[in-house]
C-alpha cells in the first residue's frame, strides 16, 4: 500500500468518532464483515486505527478505495460543508435522452482528465437516485491534492447539481464536465447556499410543501388554544387570528426546510412618510447589507408576526425564499 494512501486513510479514519466507525466501515464495504468483527473498538483510537491500517494493507487498498471512504464520511457529516446549488439547462428543442450512468461517469472523468491530466475522480451511487462525485484536483505537473477535494451531488434526470463550495479555480472546468457528461447546454449558479443539503434538495425540487392534509384545517390552531379556558378573555382575539391565518398562508402548514441564513444587498432610496424631509434631496440610494441568521431561519421568521415583532403579512422578500429557491438577494429600486 502506497505511503500516501496509508496516510490519507489514517487521516480520514481519525476524523470519524468511534461511535460511528462501524457504520461508516460497513457502508464503505471494502473490508469484509468478518474482519470488522475482529476489531476491538473499545481500545484507544490510535490502536483501532493501527489495526484498520493493517487490514487495509493486507487488502492492498488503493487511492480509489480511500477516496470512497472519504465520500462515505462526507455523506455522514454533510452538514460540515456549505453547499452551493447549480442549475443546468438544455437548448430548447433538445431531445430528452435516456440517462446512462456509465456513459455519464466515463464522459465526466474524460473531460477532467483531458484538461488536468492528474485528477482523482470517484463516484458513489445511493438508492435515492443520486450520485456523489468526489474530485481531487491536480495539474499537469502535480499530483492530486487529496485533502481539498470537491464534492458534487447530482440527481440524474433533474437539472440540479449541489457542490461543496470550496471551488475557486476549477469551477468552469467542473461546470463543463457536468454539462457535457449530462448532455446539457449550460450551467448557472443559483443564489442559494446552505449547510443543509437535504433542505436544499427539498427547495430545489419543491418537495417541502407536500404534507398530508389530515388534520382539521377549518379551525385555526390559535383558536383551538384560545378556546381552552373560557375564563380567560383574550385581547385582540380577532387580530391574533388574522395574523395566525396570514402566517399560515405565507408559510404553509408543513415543516419548513432548514436554512441557516439569508442575505440581502439593498440599494434603495430612503423614503419615510413619518420622518419627512430626511434625505429628501438625496438621489443616491442607501447601500445596505442585511443578513438574517438562525439555526432554523424559516421557523424563526414564521414566529415573528405571531410574536408581534413583525407585521402580517411578512414581507415577500422573506416569504419567497423557498418558492424562489434563493437566499441571496440583490434589491434595487424599480
Amino acid at each position, binding site marked *: 500500500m502506497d505511503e500516501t494512501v496509508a496516510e490519507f486513510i489514517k487521516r480520514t479514519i481519525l476524523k470519524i468518532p468511534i461511535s460511528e466507525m462501524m457504520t461508516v466501515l460497513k457502508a464503505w464495504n471494502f473490508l469484509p464483515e468478518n474482519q470488522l468483527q475482529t476489531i476491538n473498538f473499545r481500545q484507544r483510537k490510535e490502536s483501532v486505527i493501527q489495526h484498520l491500517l493493517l487490514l487495509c494493507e493486507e487488502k492492498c487498498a488503493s487511492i480509489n478505495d480511500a477516496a470512497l471512504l472519504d465520500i462515505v464520511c462526507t455523506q455522514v457529516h454533510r452538514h460540515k460543508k456549505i453547499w452551493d446549488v447549480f442549475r443546468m439547462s438544455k437548448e430548447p428543442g433538445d431531445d430528452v435522452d435516456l440517462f446512462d450512468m456509465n456513459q455519464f461517469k466515463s464522459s465526466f472523468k474524460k473531460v477532467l482528465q483531458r484538461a488536468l491530466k492528474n485528477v482523482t475522480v470517484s463516484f458513489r451511487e445511493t438508492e435515492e437516485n443520486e450520485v456523489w462525485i468526489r474530485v481531487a484536483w491536480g495539474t499537469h505537473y502535480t499530483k492530486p491534492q487529496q485533502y481539498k477535494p470537491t464534492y458534487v451531488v447530482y440527481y440524474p434526470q433533474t437539472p440540479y447539481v449541489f457542490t461543496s463550495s470550496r471551488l475557486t479555480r476549477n469551477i468552469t472546468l467542473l461546470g463543463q464536465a457536468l454539462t457535457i457528461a449530462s448532455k446539457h447546454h449550460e450551467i448557472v449558479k443559483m443564489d442559494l447556499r446552505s449547510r443543509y443539503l437535504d433542505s436544499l434538495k427539498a427547495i430545489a425540487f419543491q418537495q417541502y410543501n407536500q404534507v398530508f392534509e389530515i388534520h382539521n384545517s377549518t379551525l385555526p390552531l390559535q383558536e383551538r388554544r384560545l378556546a381552552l379556558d373560557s375564563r380567560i378573555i383574550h385581547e385582540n382575539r380577532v387580530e391574533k387570528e388574522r395574523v395566525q391565518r396570514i402566517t399560515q398562508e405565507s408559510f404553509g402548514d408543513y415543516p419548513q426546510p432548514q436554512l441557516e441564513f439569508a442575505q440581502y444587498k439593498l440599494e434603495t432610496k*430612503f423614503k*419615510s412618510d413619518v420622518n419627512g424631509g430626511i434625505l429628501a434631496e438625496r438621489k443616491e440610494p442607501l447601500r445596505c*447589507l*442585511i443578513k438574517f441568521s438562525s*439555526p432554523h431561519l424559516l421557523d424563526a421568521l414564521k414566529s415573528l408576526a405571531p410574536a408581534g*415583532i413583525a407585521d402580517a403579512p411578512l414581507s415577500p422578500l422573506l416569504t419567497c425564499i423557498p418558492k424562489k429557491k434563493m437566499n441571496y438577494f440583490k434589491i434595487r429600486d424599480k
Partner: protein
Amino acid sequence: MDSYDAPELTLRQSAFSRPEGICATPLQKRLESVRKQTSSVPTPPRRRIPQCPQVQEDVDPQKVAFLLHKQWTLYSLTPLYKFSYTNLKEYSRLLSAFIVAEKQKGLAVEVGEDLNIKVIFSILLGVKGTQRDPEAFLIQILSKSQFPSENREGKVLWTGWFCCVFGDNLLETVLEDFTCLPLFLANGSESNTAIIRTWFQKTFDCYFSPLAINAFNLSWMAAMWTACKMDHYVAATEFLWSVPCNPQSLNISYAIHPEDAKALWDSVHKTPGEVTQEEVDLFMDCLGSHFHRHFKIHLSATRLVCVSTSVASAHTDGKIKILCHKYLIGVLAYLTELAIFQIE
C-alpha cells in the same frame, strides 16, 4: 447647594478607616446629587461630539497604537485606596509573586501554562481628558524569554489598563488617599483577569464590576461615532440585533455603507458641536423605518447587541474595540462616564 458641610468631619475620620460599602463616601454623595439633578430637571442630555482632544500633544500615536484593534473587556472600578504612581516597580514585583502563587495553588492552572512570567506596570501618558484626570497606567504580563541571553521581551500574555477620561466633571470631591480610575480594560485570558482583580481588590480595597452596555448607550455610541469626521472609512457602520423569538434564535446584521450612514446623520443633525437625544432617536428611527419598509419587521421590538463603525465597535457584554487613533480619547470619555454611573 453645598451638601458637604456635614460630612466634612466624618470625611476625615473615614480617611483613616477602610471605607465599607455601608457608609456613604463623599464620592457616593456626589453621584447621588448628580443623579437627583438629572432626574428632576427634564432637559434631554447633550453630549459633545468627540473632537480631537486638548491634550493630544501628549498622546504619542505610536505608544497608544497597541491599544487599537484589540478587543477589550470593560469593568468599572471604585477608587483605589493609597495607590501611588511612585511605587509601580514594587507593585510589579508583588503582583508577579501573587500570580505565580495563585497559579501554583492550582486554582487557575491551564495545562502547559508557563509560570515563568514577568509583570510590568507602566504609565500611559496622555490617555486622559483634562490635566486633572489621574494618569492612566498599564499592566502587562509577559512570558519570560526562554533564552536569557536574548534581550527581547517575552510574549505578551495579558494586558490591562486603567484610565479616567474627563472624569473630574463627575468626581469633584476626591479624598487625598484615593485615586479614581473608574475604567478598566482587559485583554487576555479570563483566569489572568480574575487574578489581577483579586490582587487589586486586596491591595487597594477597590471593587471591579463588569460594565455591560445597554441598547440605549449603544445607540448613542453609534450616533456619536457616525458623526465623527473621518478622512477615510475602514469599515461599514454595522448593527447587530438579537430577536427574542421562540424556539429558534434569530440574529439580524444590518450594515450600511459608512458614507450613506454619514449622509443620514448629517440630514438628522441640527445642532453643531452637540449630539442630542432627539437626534439619536431620529437616527435610529430612520434606520428602523428603512428596514421596516423592506422586511415589515420592527427592529424596536428586538434587542440591539452590537454596534460597529470605523471609529470603534462595542458589544452589549461590555466589549470594545477602538479602531481610530484620532477619537481614542472621545471613546474613552464616554466609557468613563458609563463606568462612573455604574459605581455605586
